[in-house]
């Protein structure tokens, strides 16, 4: 089963099999398994959002630093709850009007080339 990795994650995040809890500054936790070709999709339930807090989710390579948000550099792509902005290489662009919040179910899809 794909779960949130217990070691491929920032040490300060609280991780259970299927959930991640963060506080203070952005940090990253990744899944136990990665994908390398084809089309893949995952869903996340946004469980709890204290006032003025936000999350970013997306796709990341193993090279992306764990002590920053997803979308910080060229090795990851992130989607932010605030305004629904997409981020890559620390540049935010308009993506989804209004963003998302606690109680929403969020889906992330990736298309990768299929080996011939």
């Amino acid at each position, binding site marked *: 089963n794909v779960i949130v990795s217990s070691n491929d994650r920032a040490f300060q995040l609280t991780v259970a099999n299927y959930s991640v809890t963060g506080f203070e500054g952005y940090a990253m936790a990744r899944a136990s398994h990665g994908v390398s070709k084809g089309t893949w999709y995952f869903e996340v339930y946004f469980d709890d959002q204290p006032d003025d807090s936000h999350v970013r989710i997306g796709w990341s390579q193993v090279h992306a630093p764990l002590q*920053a948000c997803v979308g910080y550099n060229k090795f990851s792509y992130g989607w932010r709850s605030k305004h629904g902005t997409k981020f890559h290489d620390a540049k935010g662009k308009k993506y989804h009007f209004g963003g998302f919040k606690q109680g929403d179910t969020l889906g992330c899809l990736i298309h990768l080339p299929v080996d011939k």
Partner: protein
Amino acid sequence: DFFKINQLKFRKKMIKFARSRIHGWGLYAMETIAQDEMIVEYIGQKIRSLVADEREKAYERRGIGSSYLFRIDEHSVIDATKRGNFARFINHSCQPNCYAKVLTIEGDKRIVIYSRSIINKGEEITYDYKFPIEDDKIDCLCGAKACRGYLN
């Protein structure tokens, strides 16, 4: 250590900052300081390592020196660039009269500057910054006999 660090707050007249022979401003001993004595805590904003990396780039872009970033451990850095105390004025020397130690007081890591040897009244307080080696060299102005020639 907890007791001694708190004592430092009441011993401020032990040191003062003034024009330095090495560079800009420096810290000077106002009384004789014995060897291995706590002199001053290096105080600033405690930030994460990656935040420090981003600040270093931002400071360079704005022409602000980034030598006020002092690493505590692999996770944290003290940044005294805009907020801190006068320990930020301590100049580098290749043959310093002080060294730094990271102390853990009630679970909190702090940087404290200690005297390496007896420091006479009027002598400048110096420390070896151990800047990382880089291609673009910056001349060292410490004037010590064992000067390495460059800060980096």
